[in-house]
């Protein structure tokens, strides 16, 4: 494999930053900025005791990122507090997903992480109550186009994103971790049953929950490997890496992981997660686990094809990391992401709608 981009080299080993010249730091910071990982870079260098060795000009940028990182951490705690208050009367277990879960649970994967939306998991039967309670407390639905509404409510696994009218923060309410329309249906009831309670944020509120360690890793894996768009591919892969490092130290974590993946029908995403974490980030994974999950992977030649796609898409999205085949790889994975989430006839209609009819413009990449 060609030399890894400088951002990946430093994520694997922060000491790799120490020898960089001015141009090297320039590129590292730009790749990190594009990946939304500047504050994570700061955390890694600071934890490794290397901050003093960073040249002054680059050091300023890391200190800028410190401000942004702290701001996000503060904002996510406050937003989760407000969400918890809005839903506290409903008596349902509030389960945080993804970034806000890592942050509120005090996991390494939450440090330096920036947040856009907050994702929660609630029982499907209570979606209506949840939506009503949120609206009562100042959130409003987005994506008012009838097609988009149907996309989210009927076919996907979530309400259309809701935006708080005053604060502007967005909440995504899920009832499952994969869409209704997907071929694989990990049972949300199993996820909820295994969920872990966190210390209460507020004495008046019921405790928050996060997924159990196995499920948190598997959710991260399925989210990353059934996605169609990889603008945060490197960051999400690094989330996985940090989760595996932290949970890997717990007794029984590695032993139970392959079996839990099979129980949730998530063997394939786990295979990819372990494979690409190891290849790109050097995540230490016990041989026994690699052997146990090997059969879940695709057979050749599909395996080689998926390597060529993912090993491009998971690189930092910065233009400096793209080769001639990157656009094609992204295109194919976009189609694959949608294909995994919905049946073929719906897919073509969906892509047509997105390309020509949807009033929302996406940012140009």
């Amino acid at each position, binding site marked *: 494999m060609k030399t890894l981009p400088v951002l990946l080299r430093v994520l694997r080993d922060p000491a790799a930053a120490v020898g960089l010249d*001015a*141009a090297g*730091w*320039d590129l590292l910071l*730009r790749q990190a*900025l*594009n990946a939304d990982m500047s504050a994570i870079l700061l955390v890694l260098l600071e934890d490794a005791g290397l901050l003093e060795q960073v*040249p002054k*000009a*680059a050091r*300023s*940028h890391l*200190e*800028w990122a410190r*401000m*942004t990182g*702290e*701001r996000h951490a*503060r904002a996510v705690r406050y937003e989760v507090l407000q969400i918890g208050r809005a839903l506290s009367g409903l008596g349902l277990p509030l389960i945080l997903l993804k970034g806000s879960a890592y942050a509120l649970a005090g996991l390494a994967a939450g440090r330096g992480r920036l947040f856009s939306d907050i994702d929660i998991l609630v029982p499907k039967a209570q979606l209506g109550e949840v939506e009503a309670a949120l609206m009562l407390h100042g959130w409003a639905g987005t994506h008012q186009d009838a097609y988009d509404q149907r996309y989210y409510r009927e076919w996907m696994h979530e309400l259309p994103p809701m935006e708080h009218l005053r604060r502007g923060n967005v909440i995504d309410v899920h009832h499952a971790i994969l869409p209704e329309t997907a071929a694989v249906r990990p049972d949300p009831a199993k996820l909820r049953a295994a969920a872990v309670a966190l210390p209460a944020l507020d004495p008046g509120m019921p405790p928050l929950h996060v997924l159990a360690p196995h499920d948190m890793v598997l959710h991260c894996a399925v989210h990353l490997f059934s996605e169609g768009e990889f603008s945060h591919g490197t960051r999400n892969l690094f989330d996985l890496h940090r989760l595996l490092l932290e949970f890997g130290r717990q007794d029984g974590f590695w032993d139970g992981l392959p079996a839990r993946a099979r129980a949730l029908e998530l063997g394939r995403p786990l295979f990819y997660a372990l494979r690409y974490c190891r290849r790109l980030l050097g995540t230490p994974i016990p041989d026994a686990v690699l052997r146990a999950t090997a059969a879940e992977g695709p057979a050749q030649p599909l395996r080689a094809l998926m390597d060529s796609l993912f090993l491009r898409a998971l690189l930092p*999205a*910065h*233009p400096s990391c793209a080769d001639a085949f990157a656009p094609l790889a992204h295109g194919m994975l976009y189609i694959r992401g949608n294909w995994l989430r919905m049946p073929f006839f719906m897919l073509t209609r969906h892509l047509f709608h997105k390309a020509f009819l949807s009033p929302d413009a996406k*940012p*140009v*990449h």
Partner: protein
Amino acid sequence: MLTVADLPRRELAARLAGPGLVLRTGPFANRIRSDIPQLRDGIALLYADYPVDAPGGFADFHLSLRRAGGLRRFFRPQVCFSHEGVSPFKPLPLAQAFPMFEWVMNWCVTHRAHSWLIIHAAVLERHGRAIILPAPPGSGKSTLCAALVTRGWRLLSDEMTLVRLDDGAVLPLPRPVSLKNESIGIIRAYAPDAVLSPPVENTNKGTIAHLKAPSASIARVGDVAQPAFIVFPRYEAGAPVTLTPMGRARAFMGVAENAFNYQVLGMRGFTALGQLIDATAAFEFRYSKLDDAVQLFERMARDGV
């Protein structure tokens, strides 16, 4: 030290079209790439005195302003800004390339440079005292700023006041002063020798031109200033000059509301702003005649009251 004026025109064009022109403004190195002649000319005119770094090193901000591609090129040419492979804004008509450049140069700083409390305000210095002029768009701040600049005040910035978090000093970031609509004519009359860019019409703020920053201000880019006054200006036709003292707590809130990154800085921003308010006297200011305003500020800077 090499400046833009030292580069032969061909070299300037080659750097912009190729590895990038690395232009220093205030504490920042900006790597600029563009294939647009209007932008090259604007930089040659208004940034003549600014230092230039060799390409290929470290730059704080990387900006690319290029012609948008496709069939559009021929019918309605446009300029597109991209930043690390992302285009955060819609393209604008090609004729607006220089105003767009000024606007994205501001955007880069206000969105990221969190070593300072960045106030949406002009800041100028005279007799060792700096006056900060926060004002929402349309308050006449830029006209006032341009007038003061042509009467010997040192320009630190017309748009972004950078207050150092640890000690409250204001860092110079002198850049061209933007003037809109009637202000352009007013400043031409007020200072006939001032160097102005050709006006650009039909921007979303009307007609815009830029006033070149004085060379003396650019030369002193390394000298911080101590803030003495915070003045919230408002132009009112026919109004006599009135300077009304403002309660400090209200001045605090007024500045916080006009700061780009106050929320991002959290407690550090609160502390730094408190110190700024301690160190300064705050006023609301009404005026109609530029000369009256300039005279009053001169007295304030000279006498300290």
